[in-house]
């Protein structure tokens, strides 16, 4: 799953690649990062679980929020919908690979790498001018 928005920064950034699992039996607990879909919308949302209320029989309703958002996701849900349910979950984020991010990190931590990249970019431009 390719990550589009900034609502989970600074953990995830635009362009990061997320690895998901989708085990329906896995209990949903606060703190977990879930991928869910709102009825009628195509693009799934990846946010953290903020609140859960689970019945004895396993029926669960929960609320989510993006780390970088000031408020919870109720405003994003369908009109009249106050909670998410198991059926709305597409998967759970288990790991990720930063996309362009890794290059920026390397450039920050290793100045020699940054100079090498800049030098190579410079060469590239020069060569292509010809």
């Amino acid at each position, binding site marked *: 799953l390719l990550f589009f928005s900034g609502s989970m920064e600074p*953990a995830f950034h635009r362009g990061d690649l997320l690895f998901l699992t989708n085990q329906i039996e896995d209990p949903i607990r*606060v*703190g977990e990062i879930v991928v869910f879909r709102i009825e009628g919308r195509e693009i799934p949302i990846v946010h953290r679980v903020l*609140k*859960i209320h689970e019945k004895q029989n396993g029926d669960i309703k929960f609320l989510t929020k993006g780390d970088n958002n000031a408020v919870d996701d109720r405003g994003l849900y369908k009109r009249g919908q106050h909670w998410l349910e198991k059926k709305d979950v597409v998967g759970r*984020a288990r*790991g990720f690979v930063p996309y362009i991010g890794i290059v920026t990190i390397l450039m920050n931590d290793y100045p020699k790498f940054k100079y090498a990249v800049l030098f190579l970019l410079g060469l590239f431009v020069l060569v292509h001018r010809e």
Partner: protein
Amino acid sequence: LRKNVEDFTGPRERSDLGFVTFDITADILNGKNGLRTIFDWNVKQLFLYLSAEYSTKNNALNQVVLWDKIILRGDNPRLVLKDMKSKYFFFDDGNGLKGNRNVTLTLSWNVVPNAGILPLVTGSGHVSVPFPDTYEMTKSY
């Protein structure tokens, strides 16, 4: 301290709203002075959160995040927070906070790597916050 207030963010029914004040003292291992570090080469940040867990007649399991904080690599490793109020409204799904003696607060954290797996860790140890049997009528918080 607990009030019975209309939950204006959700369904229009009266639900229990809990008010909790807390202190947190935490030493995050950061490798200084020969200590181990949780911030190894692949850890970018910690997502710390305080959650309350309890059971009610309506729901066998309830978990509510009261407060959270992002700790970036390089931040001050000593966290001393006093008299903190919860960041998020502690609404129950119903009236299950009244007289509930078994509400436990736990501190947990999500380790966010530069790349790789995202583990969730729950701190050992927890605090119990028993709620009173009556509602508070005052307006101050």
